């Protein structure tokens, strides 16, 4: 059984068809890139999967269950976690504090005006675990708002990981980053997938990352699926070349 399945999914906004008859499946443990020119429907796809709005047609199935019209909060509980193109970290809090609130929320402790020492330790351990996972432990006491954009996005991923996602949706994870930060993020994505075995679906524009990291690539263009396959297949696909990579690829 595929982890995520879209069957003939379309989404229209009035007269505009953003996505047209998309069918795809993502297997457990996959690292899948979604690419396509601007306006191809990639973010709409993410919005559908994460429950922002329902599809106009078609079905979305997660772990064998229909999630076609389920709201985002419920999907978070089911394990579909997404990050945003515009970082939404807590700017005036430190990295540690950012992750702490995420962990406490994940543990359902938000209403507690007091917690025992044992629970405090559990929270603290989990935060340390997350910081180690995204390799930001050395910046634990830095205030998020004073960090670089790249670091903020790493914290974002950390927040997403606090919910132990079954399916992680990363919307343009390296957008706006310099080389070093891009490498960090790329390495992080690879580690999360290969070592932590998290299924990841990510939107990317940087072809180096896409071809270097992804197991499988889905190409969208103008709301339709142009091609699907591994790096070699996609690179060789003439339609993809024409639409996206340019003849020189």
């Amino acid at each position: 059984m595929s982890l995520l399945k879209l069957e003939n999914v379309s989404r229209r906004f009035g007269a505009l068809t953003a996505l047209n008859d998309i069918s795809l499946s993502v297997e457990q443990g996959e690292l899948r890139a979604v690419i396509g020119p601007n306006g191809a429907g990639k973010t709409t796809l993410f919005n559908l999967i994460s429950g922002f709005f329902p599809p106009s047609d078609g079905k979305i199935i997660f772990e064998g269950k229909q999630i076609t019209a389920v709201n985002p909060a419920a999907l978070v509980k089911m394990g579909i976690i997404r990050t945003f193109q515009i970082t939404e970290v807590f700017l005036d809090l430190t990295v540690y504090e950012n992750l702490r609130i995420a962990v406490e929320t994940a543990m359902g402790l938000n209403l507690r005006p007091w917690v025992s020492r044992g629970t405090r330790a559990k929270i603290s351990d989990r935060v340390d675990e997350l910081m180690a996972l995204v390799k930001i432990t050395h910046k634990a006491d830095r205030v998020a708002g004073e960090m670089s954009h790249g670091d903020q996005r790493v914290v974002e991923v950390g927040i997403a990981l606090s919910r132990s996602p079954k399916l992680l949706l990363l919307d343009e994870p390296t957008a706006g980053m310099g080389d070093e930060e891009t490498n960090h993020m790329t390495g992080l994505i690879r580690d999360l997938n290969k070592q932590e075995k998290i299924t990841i679906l990510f939107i990317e524009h940087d072809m180096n990352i896409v071809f270097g990291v992804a197991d499988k690539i889905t190409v969208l263009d103008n709301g339709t699926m142009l091609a699907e396959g591994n790096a070699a297949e996609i690179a060789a696909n003439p339609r993809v070349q024409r639409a996206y990579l340019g003849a020189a690829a």
Partner: protein
Amino acid sequence: MIAEQRNKIVMGVAALLLLTVPFWAGYVGGYTDLASRVLIYALAAMGLNLLLGFTGGLSFGHAAYFGLGAYGTGLMLADVTNNTLLALLVGTLVGGLAALLLGPIAVRRRGIYFSMITIAIGQMFYFIAVRWNSFTGGEDGLTGFSRQPILGLSLNSTQFYYMVLIFFCLGALLLWTILNSPLGHTFVAIRENQKRLTFLGIRVDRYVALSFAISGVVCALAGGLNALLDNFASPDDLRYTLSGNFLIIVVLGGMRNFWGPLVGAAIFVLVQNYVSAVTQNWMTVIGLVFVLSVMFFPLGVLGFFRRRSRA
């Protein structure tokens, strides 16, 4: 760490000063009741700060809960009982209950609308107090009660000061515990980025309403103590001008600092006291304090120091 040691020393000195007020107040031209007033306003402002500085809700009507605490306590002592602590408890509960019931109404809207609702609530209680002459004493205020002895202690100025100090510490302890718990962390996260929390599945308005209720309880306690201090309660305890005073106290001391309100209250009460003794135009001075602190000192006294130690 140097900063930590310095903080400990400052706190220690402050605690020592607070514990010995009745002995040195006279030497600096003050008096014990003035110190009680500082602690009472500080407590009210700390309650307000939970909502304002730590959850991000701009309430311009928190005097309502202060006033309800004052009237509740006063009426209990005037008509029902001789037990000072019971009266204080009832006053606190009355104000707290109002905040608990009205908070959910206020948080249905955000931003300016939220502030406007809090103003409306405050004004309503003010006019009820003014008009309901027979019950509240109207414009002239509620008299006919005074704080009664507890356990054989007459509660003169000095003894009452220590009673206020105890309640202040209890209130501060409550707030401190909450702010360092997951609930408190959630409040702060709401201030920082409501949207993010909503996407993590949190019903933000419920938490703001909870913050509203807790802050109302603390303000009501302060109001009750205020009534016991003056042996008097008046509609002015409910007025938006008092709400404004609490706000400026929070801003003066430092909005995002736990002890900010204590510093702010000390400055405000002392300035108000000394200036009104010196000039007729103390209102202008207070007004200037508002304007200048907002323009040049928006982080408040403690915020100013915190910035410097961080950089």
